[in-house]
């Protein structure tokens, strides 16, 4: 089993795993072989990270909004995007992964809603650029297009199942805003 192996079919129909839905704005990681992360993506992007040595995997799910008015020059809120990616990386490291071992898959980023100008493309480009800058190898991507996707990911084995689903199954597009409680507040001791 590896990050390149798909999740095998389960003809017996037995429910082998605990399925955990990764919601928009979440980043989860685990080395638990009984967990399967699952998410449905329209314009949102999911990053799957896997450390083949420590057998730790993680997934996030994000859709970045336009940047705040005081941060011109970028098309999406890169500050919040880097924060969400760092949350995922830190979750991985706290469970024993090493950053230099990390390999990535990217999914989603469809332009499902024609009224939203290529927001999926912009989010996909942000994710690719983040991985490039961090030196994290992108092993597989299925990005763009106009169809929603469902991604199932087993963090302990790195196995992935990707399916196209009807757009109505994708959650409504809600650009991710910075959480109200996390606005870069400063506390001097």
């Amino acid at each position, binding site marked *: 089993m590896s990050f390149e192996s798909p999740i095998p079919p389960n003809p017996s129909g037995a429910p082998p795993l605990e399925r955990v839905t990764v919601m928009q704005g979440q980043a989860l990681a685990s080395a638990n072989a009984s967990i399967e992360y699952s998410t449905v993506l329209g314009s949102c992007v999911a990053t799957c990270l896997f450390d083949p040595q420590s057998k730790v995997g993680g997934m996030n799910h994000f859709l970045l909004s336009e940047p705040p008015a*005081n*941060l011109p020059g970028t098309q999406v809120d*890169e*500050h*919040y995007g*880097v*924060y969400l*990616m*760092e*949350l995922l*990386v*830190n979750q991985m*490291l*706290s469970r024993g992964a*090493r*950053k230099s071992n990390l390999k990535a898959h990217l999914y989603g980023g469809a332009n499902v809603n024609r009224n939203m100008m290529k927001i999926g493309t912009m989010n996909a480009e942000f994710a690719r650029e*983040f991985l490039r*800058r*961090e*030196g994290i190898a992108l092993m597989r991507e299925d990005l763009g297009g106009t169809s929603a996707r469902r991604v199932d990911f087993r963090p302990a084995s790195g196995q992935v199942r990707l399916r196209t689903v009807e757009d109505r199954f994708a959650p409504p597009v809600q650009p991710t805003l*910075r959480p109200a409680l*996390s*606005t*870069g*507040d*400063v*506390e*001097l*001791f």
Partner: protein
Amino acid sequence: MTTTTTRILTVDDSPSMRALLNHALSGHGFDVSQAEDGMAALDWLAMNEVDVVITDINMPRLDGFGLIERLREGSRHRDRPILVLTTESSDEKKARARAAGATGWIVKPFDPEKLVAAVRRVAH
């Protein structure tokens, strides 16, 4: 009146975060240097002068707590302002940073204006 540029060392293992910090701080006239973890920061600080250190917590080799403790052990950086910039939000981690000798605690994602204001406030 003389003006001197405030020199800042940013310590973060994420090149993306270092780029954001560099952009935010250089744009306000600060002289910004970068280190990729606590060990690289110690090496850099052994050879260079700085006015403020801004450090992440979760880093390989030597984390932010270790960096602060090592800097406070010696006399040269005992009073150097050190701001922690982190995704961590737990009170326990914040208390640990304070006990190690941090000057301030900033939660990511950072607001460039608030960060700049904090740097100006602590810079001697």
